[in-house]
């Protein structure tokens, strides 16, 4: 922590300490209750880019095709290219006059595809797929983008290792941290 930040923190503590009726920044109701492991398991949907947090499971491109056509195609198109909801295509287009951002062309990490599909899709019934179904449909989306072969099985052990075409396409200011 920088000197300035430390000073700021002290200043805030001092101000609060001098407010009538408030003696110390520390004194507040402390009403948080300890959350059980089960509670957290229920709410924790976050998957790290390195795969940490992925639940055990696996799925194949072939199984994914069936799920995709039944549960996703009516919005995203049977080829994944429904206008406005494309999830396929555009690889190599980002620096061109007409960049196309899709799962295939733009997303940096494969693990995010599990994270997002599980928490948000299918849009009309999120969190209705089993973990294995999510792995399958993720495998299918990767195959539609020619990122993995048709025969491939994707699992909690292999997903994060799949290299996305635009993995190195992003940057951010690490001053933020």
């Amino acid at each position: 922590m920088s000197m300035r930040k430390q000073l700021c923190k002290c200043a805030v503590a001092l101000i609060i300490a001098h407010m009538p009726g408030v003696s110390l920044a520390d004194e507040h109701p402390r009403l948080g209750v300890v959350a059980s492991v089960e509670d957290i398991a229920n709410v924790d949907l976050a998957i790290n880019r390195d795969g940490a947090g992925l639940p055990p499971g696996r799925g194949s491109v072939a199984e994914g095709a069936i799920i995709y056509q039944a549960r996703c195609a009516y919005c995203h198109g049977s080829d994944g290219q429904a206008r406005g909801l494309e999830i396929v295509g555009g690889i190599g287009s980002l620096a061109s006059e007409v960049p196309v951002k899709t799962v295939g062309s733009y997303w940096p990490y494969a693990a995010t595809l599990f994270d997002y599909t599980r928490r948000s899709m299918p849009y009309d019934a999120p969190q209705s797929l089993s973990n294995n179904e999510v792995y399958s449909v993720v495998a299918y989306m990767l195959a539609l983008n020619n990122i993995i072969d048709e025969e491939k099985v994707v699992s909690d052990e292999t997903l994060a290792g799949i290299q996305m075409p635009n993995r190195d396409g992003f940057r951010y200011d690490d001053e933020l941290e």
Partner: protein
Amino acid sequence: MTAARRSNSSVRQDSRASDVHVAAGGLLHRRHLLVGGASAIAASMPSGAAISAPDTPSWMLAPGSEPPPYGTPSPHEMRVARHILQFYLDRAPEFRISGTPLEALDGTLTPNGLHFETHHSGVPAIDPSSHRLYLYGLVSRNVSFGVEDLLRYPQTTTTCFIECSGNSFFNTMPEPSDRPCGAIHGLVSCSEWSGVPLGLLLDEAGLSDGARWLVVSGADSNAYSRSIPLSKARDNIFVALHQNGERIRPEQGYPMRLVIPGWEASAQVKWLHSIKVTAEPGFTRDETSRYSDLRANGAADLFTFTMGVKSVITRPAPGGVAAHRGYNEISGLAWSGHGRIARVEVSADRGASWAEAVLQEPVLPLSLTRFRAPWRWNGQPAVLMSRAVDSAGNIQPTHDAWRERYASNTRYHYNAVQAWQIEANGEARNVYA
């Protein structure tokens, strides 16, 4: 000269001997505000003809109605409503964005029912008695809080604007949109928010070594998720429970949302449900695939949280009040995620000359700031522009300068100078200049 001719010529106040001009195209000295407006109105009254007394209005002849327990606008103002845009039509009809009708409002605070609104899967109907906020991850103990619990904590109150990073995205398109001002720029609003400083809650969980980021999720059906650096959480983030005095509305994240003054709205997770303390950002879909800024060279910026300095003239403006020949008060809004608005300049001749606008006090940091400039329009083609400078010295770019930086499909963080062309009939039209 007949009386009729005389009154006509005084309505058309193209120029007056007392005018003090400060820039070309009819921009007047600030002393014409209020004073100039009043005298111009007086001058435009038909001078000779007597105004016949109207019949006493019915509302003066009988008692009025009982006021409702919760007030609503006058029925005569019902057309003042948010501008709604749908994206996925039949496939996801509830997926909408609703822009504040900036052209119909004055002052700096947005009425709660007109605060802009976006979401990623509709507005969830949350029962507050079964909603909790969970804090977990790199902490000493995982904790959760109910809504009633949070209401018992020391609260903090801040007035700030909230702006969607996609605000004004129509202006990133090849052709200027002819939509109303608020449909283009209305994904910004300003409220007084109250809530619990996030730092208090984090202290209660106790941070572990290596804690650097917060991966935050909402309780909407999208379980919308974004990452925020912990350093910011220590700064000025709070869990908001009240907006302009009342509990926040469902569209604004009822029963609780994050408020991060000056940052893009999409990081201020609504329907706040869980905060995971982590070593790294989550690189979630909504901070990589969406809300990242693709540059013209094919590389994209992540975590571009701070909203740039920006301004827009809301009167005259498309969809709102037209310019009148003679005296007008130009009025608009300016804001910056970097601090306070230091200066706003206005041009009536497409940026060839500029005059400094008057800022309405109080000028609050990270809040909408109202500016005004007196203007006498001679009826000739004119292009009005405003250009804001913030307390950090940032100035709005031109449309072309902004455009050059980004890929053709980048729709976020557009903050270029807005130009309204004033047509012969006084109506304002969006143009790129």
